[in-house]
């Protein structure tokens, strides 16, 4: 997941650079639809470049993955990747049904965030059940708790 997130971070960083520098993105598709997508009205959201939103998202995901393993960190990764997937789905919809263009950079980021979301959901649901003695412990050593501990992570 860390490797995937790093690749996604690189893609988002490149697109953010393209946005601010006005450079033409590298694109293998004829007619450079990437450039058309990057310069479209949908390349920003309330004035913030969507590439920058993606970059911040990947940084946060990486942070949650590098944080000490535990219920809270796994939940944070899940929230971030589900959010990232939703945002990516919206952007892909705009590409396909509004702009009628497809950008390979955006597609690669969408694929990365989709895989990250699936992995993080699996990791969150299958993760060790936390115990009061530490952030996590193997399931066989589980001690009954008066309240579900996951509630404590909610902020």
């Amino acid at each position, binding site marked *: 997941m860390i490797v995937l997130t790093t690749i996604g971070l690189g893609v988002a960083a490149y697109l953010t650079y393209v946005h601010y520098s006005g450079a033409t993105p590298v694109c293998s598709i004829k*007619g450079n639809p990437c450039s058309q997508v990057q310069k479209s009205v949908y390349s920003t959201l309330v004035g913030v470049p969507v590439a920058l939103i993606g970059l911040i998202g990947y940084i946060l995901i990486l942070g949650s993955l590098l944080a000490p393993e535990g219920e809270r960190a796994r939940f944070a990764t899940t929230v971030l990747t589900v*959010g990232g997937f939703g945002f990516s789905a919206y952007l892909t919809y705009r590409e396909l049904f509004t*702009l*009628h263009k497809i950008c390979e950079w955006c597609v690669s980021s969408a694929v990365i965030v989709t895989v990250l979301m699936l992995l993080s959901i699996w990791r969150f649901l299958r993760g060790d059940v936390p115990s009061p003695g530490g952030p996590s412990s193997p*399931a066989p050593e589980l001690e*009954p*708790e008066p309240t*579900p501990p996951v509630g404590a992570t909610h902020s």
Partner: protein
Amino acid sequence: MSDSRDDDPQDDEGDLTRKQRREQARTQRRELEQAEAASAVRRTRLTRLGIVVAVVVAAIVVILLATGGGSKKGIPKTAQAKTQAVSEVTSLVGGIPQNGKVLGNPKAPVTLQYFGDLECPICKEFTLGALPSILRQWVRSGKLKIEYRALETATREPEVFKTQQVAALAAGKQNKMWDFLELFYHEQGEEDSGYVTESYLQALARQVPGLNLPQWTSDRNDPALATEVTGDTEAANNAGFTGTPSFEIGKTGELHPFTPGTYTEPGPYNAQIEKLLKS
């Protein structure tokens, strides 16, 4: 005196069995509690995941609606709106002679060259603002002809610019370029929204009354039209134009740059045309 129970081996066995039973029961209870706790954690996790998904879906719907929903910012959706746009355009240019990109009497004494970009919102301002009055007063009377020339400004992508301009010129081969232009400006979409697609251009062409669509489609492949677009750009560059709309006006054959100062009021245009007609 010792306790008799301690001396009785049978009692010892009974104690062991009770201890084992208690231990077994405790283990079973612990396992049950562990299973229940694990189940509760799983349920909580699923609930939290469900909440996250619901919040994300709601956020995306809000973003979608805030950024224009699923609508295409181009051709009016309703048949009534389309009919109204066609009706307005027909009343503006219907009955006026057209020859390629020129609208008006070919022998008109005064010529106005209009450099525009079909996606340029200020061109729309002019086309729907000052131009209708100019058409009624000067073009319809045969005193002025207007030549539309292309200069890429608002359209970000050169390929899109060329495609849409060639589409207009192809309509011009059937002397319906001005119908196409006017409809384009009347139904112009939001700048940079990428609304000009192949299907958009075809739908627009279908709205042009009397346009032979197979012929129009075939003419769009004429390389001479693309060359004409390049020629327009060169002419604009030679005149020093960098924005649209830009104008050249003069007695036919003697054109000079003209800066009207307004795109919505016909006054300065009328004054210039009158001056040229009197000279």
